């Protein structure tokens, strides 16, 4: 298209870059933050009201005292057990142990498409970029690609690498950020082409490969375990936004 705005990632010509290599483009749906915050768990669940009227995207990291782990760490978790979180149309519910530190992000973007209540438009200051077909002056937040009033999740580092796992392997990345950053991490086993996310157990390889990860103020760490020797590829995203 020859209108709107595009911002490419480092190393890509904005005029020819694929969408996957653009940081910003008119029409994109980014993870725009509706609410974010940190808390120390006093009682479980900690309930954070969002009152969006639909189930929005969310991310939660928990400090259990041994690194900051993404929600769900430890698998083997039920809906209402420590280390998990769930969201409904009004609240984010976080289950962690008393004294644990928690960082949460609730995004405007709903978990799925479909009719959503109109979100009030924000103030007419800063920079707003509306999606195709919406007047930038009146577009609500879901009709906008970008709004400078809102934080959006930013990726500070990402990379992919391959490792031999002889039943255990510790993957370390120094992130060089001044915070303990949020992250997402994915893995593949033995070149299968199937990629799993954090906390999953690869049940296809027959080697029960599992990846648990956490961040500190200096590193992203992933502990990989398997029942047999294998090759594991790891793709990580370290965020510019903090996890605690």
């Amino acid at each position: 298209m020859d209108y709107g705005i595009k911002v490419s990632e480092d190393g890509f010509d904005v005029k020819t870059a694929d969408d996957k290599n653009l940081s910003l483009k008119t029409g994109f749906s980014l993870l725009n933050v509706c609410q974010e915050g940190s808390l120390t768990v006093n009682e479980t669940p900690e309930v954070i009201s969002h009152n969006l009227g639909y189930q929005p995207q969310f991310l939660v990291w928990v400090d259990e005292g041994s690194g900051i782990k993404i929600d769900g760490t430890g698998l083997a978790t039920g809906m209402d057990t420590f280390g998990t979180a769930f969201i409904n149309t009004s609240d984010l519910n976080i289950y962690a142990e008393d004294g644990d530190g928690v960082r949460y992000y609730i995004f405007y973007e709903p978990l799925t498409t479909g009719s959503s209540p109109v979100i009030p438009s924000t103030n007419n200051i800063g920079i707003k970029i509306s999606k195709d077909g919406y007047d930038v002056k009146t577009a609500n937040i879901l009709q906008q690609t970008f709004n400078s009033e809102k934080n959006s999740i930013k990726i500070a580092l990402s990379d992919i690498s391959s490792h031999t796992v002889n039943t255990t392997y510790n993957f370390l990345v120094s992130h060089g950020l001044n915070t303990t950053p949020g992250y997402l991490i994915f893995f593949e086993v033995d070149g299968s082409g199937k990629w799993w996310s954090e906390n999953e157990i690869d049940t296809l390889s027959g080697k029960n490969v599992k990846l648990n990860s956490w961040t500190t103020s200096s590193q992203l760490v992933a502990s990989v375990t398997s029942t047999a020797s294998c090759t594991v590829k790891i793709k990580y995203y370290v965020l510019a936004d903090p996890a605690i």
Partner: protein
Amino acid sequence: MIDFGIKISRPGFDVNTATPEQLAFSSKYKTFKIHERGNGTVNSSVSSGLITIPHNLDYVPAFLVHVDPSQTGRYCIAPYGSSGTQFISAYADSSNLYIKAIADTSSNVYYLSSSVNESMAREIEGAGYFAGGWSVGNDSSDYYRYGAVRFTSIGLNKAESFLTATLGLYVDYNQYSNGPVKMTMWGIDEDNTAAFNSGTPATARAKTTASDNYEATISQGNMWNVDVTDQVSEIINRGSWSLNNAIGFMFWDNATTAGRVYGQLNGSYSNTNLTIIKSTATVADYKYTIFKNQLV
């Protein structure tokens, strides 16, 4: 700080000094860009529990899958599991996002009561009925033996579905270990079979229609494991069966060659067990997000 590109700070922060989290946007950083979202229901009993969602990106994308196993509008990030088992998982390749559910399989093991007279019985042709131990086979005098065992507090509701039931008979008595024993296995066709040391002798009680013939050579100190799924199913489908009732089995010799008898006698009651494996379908609503971001 890079001195090219674009940075946009959030309200209240000087763009020249703002930390990364104080920026609404910076061309220094990549972003997560949503490609596609959708929703549905995954059921471990349907299509092998596998949902396949084409994404048409021709590369492996980053993704998030949220699942609601309670189907009450509460979504957590996959995987979803319990007690070490991953019931709902998600993974992606260059063609599809996959959401997989497996059934919740649980095993319950029941052992004989220490009141051996209530839980074991045998009938010896020509000698009579005795509570307190079971035996089966054909002794050296060519007298057939019939056995019975009873388990209490069975955790199955009336007509509840289950995968398998296996009766494990512990052979601590093998008087004539020179060949296989043959037996026919029935369930005791009663809603809540009474203790074996009162009322109708266990070996004379009504038998289930379901029966199986078994033949095996078992050394002393080993288990004889036999499938009693059909027998258990028939009993718990009886009109007045209810949760925590007692269940019994009887096994008659089936023309074993003389001189071959197995049993559990002399006050021993350990090891013999009934193992019931139940399977509960995993059903969950899911919502997925596929990003434009390329994993590989």
